[in-house]
């Protein structure tokens, strides 16, 4: 992959990828693997982009599809895809956000089913029900109900944690 493509077509949307990958991983190492895999697959699929949707929507779709179908690595079979070696301590520190509420919210999101995670992430990114339905491939009428249910569930999980 050329560094130009990464800088111009992926990096501006890194936020989207990071947010999604965080929701599907539990460690810094997995997160970095998922991030790199998403970037790789965006690059590999770039020729399929037909400009029928925005590039950001395209990035969402690929990120989500890759996260849903990635093969999670076993802990005892760890490979560093990033050249810089990361120590265990650094991994722990780097994975957490500095905002504690955000960490709790992410922990709660990770407790949801994979599809519910996708729905709530897209909702939090202020995507419309129609857009969420298009990205996931579902009926927009059901998204609103599902979001409400997920929010109640998240609230319960968060309350449980706080209390």
């Amino acid at each position, binding site marked *: 992959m050329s560094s130009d493509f990464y800088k111009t077509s992926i990096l501006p949307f890194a936020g989207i990828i*990071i947010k999604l990958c965080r929701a599907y991983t539990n460690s810094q190492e997995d997160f970095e693997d998922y991030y790199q*895999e998403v970037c*790789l697959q965006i690059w590999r699929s770039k020729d*399929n982009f037909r400009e029928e949707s925005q590039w950001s929507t395209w990035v969402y779709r690929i990120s989500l599809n890759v996260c849903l179908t*990635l093969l999670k690595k076993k802990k005892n079979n760890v490979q560093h895809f990033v050249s810089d070696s990361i120590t265990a301590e650094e991994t722990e520190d780097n994975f957490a956000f*500095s905002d504690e509420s955000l960490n709790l919210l992410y922990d709660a999101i990770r407790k949801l089913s994979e599809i519910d995670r996708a729905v709530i992430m897209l909702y939090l990114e202020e995507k419309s029900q129609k857009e969420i339905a298009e990205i996931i491939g579902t*009926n927009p009428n059901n998204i609103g109900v599902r979001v409400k249910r997920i929010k109640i569930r998240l609230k319960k999980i968060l309350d449980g944690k706080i209390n």
Partner: protein
Amino acid sequence: MEKSIENIWKEGFLESDALVAPKVNNLYNQKSIHIIDKFKRMFKINLIAIVAFSFVFLVVSFFVGIPITGIIFFVTLSVLVIINKKLLKGLDKINKGLSSYQYLKTFNEWMKEQIAINKKMSTFLYPIIFMAMVLGFWFKDAKGMPLGERLVNKILYSFPDIYLIYGVPLIGIIIMVLILGLLVFFGGRIYMWDFNIVYGRVFKKLKELMTDIESLRS
């Protein structure tokens, strides 16, 4: 006042360190951990291994005097490789930019198609391999006479009243038919057993995801 999840989300990402992208190095050369790429890689390795094995076995079979086995192996495995190569092309067509439902559905359909085809082929493959082995050794030259014929002569010496059909003992034919029947019956199951060991977890996950999305569609 307690913050809503929307506010936690918005405010959380205002921190400058929240969205720092990890370093990406030499990305294209990394081995993919994506399921489709893994399938492609494993499929290709398998096909190359089958081609190499069938070719080596063909050559060796001539040297050890069982060319029939070698030829049947080579032809059968070549058909298997050609069919699976065509299946592999279907995997290339899966577009990761589709909606999640379409993407998972396409992948699931590809999986089902390849399982169905390979399962069906396995019901023929194992019996053909068995028959190839039997025929190869039956016609193997044993001091100027086919090994099978020599074996029948020995049997006739011990059991002169044994019933023969076209020069083959009936009991031998019955055993052969039984083994072939078992291989036909269990061929598909052996394939599925093998498949589930390697991909059972992935297949289960795919099914769960599909069910979940379908519940949202209904």
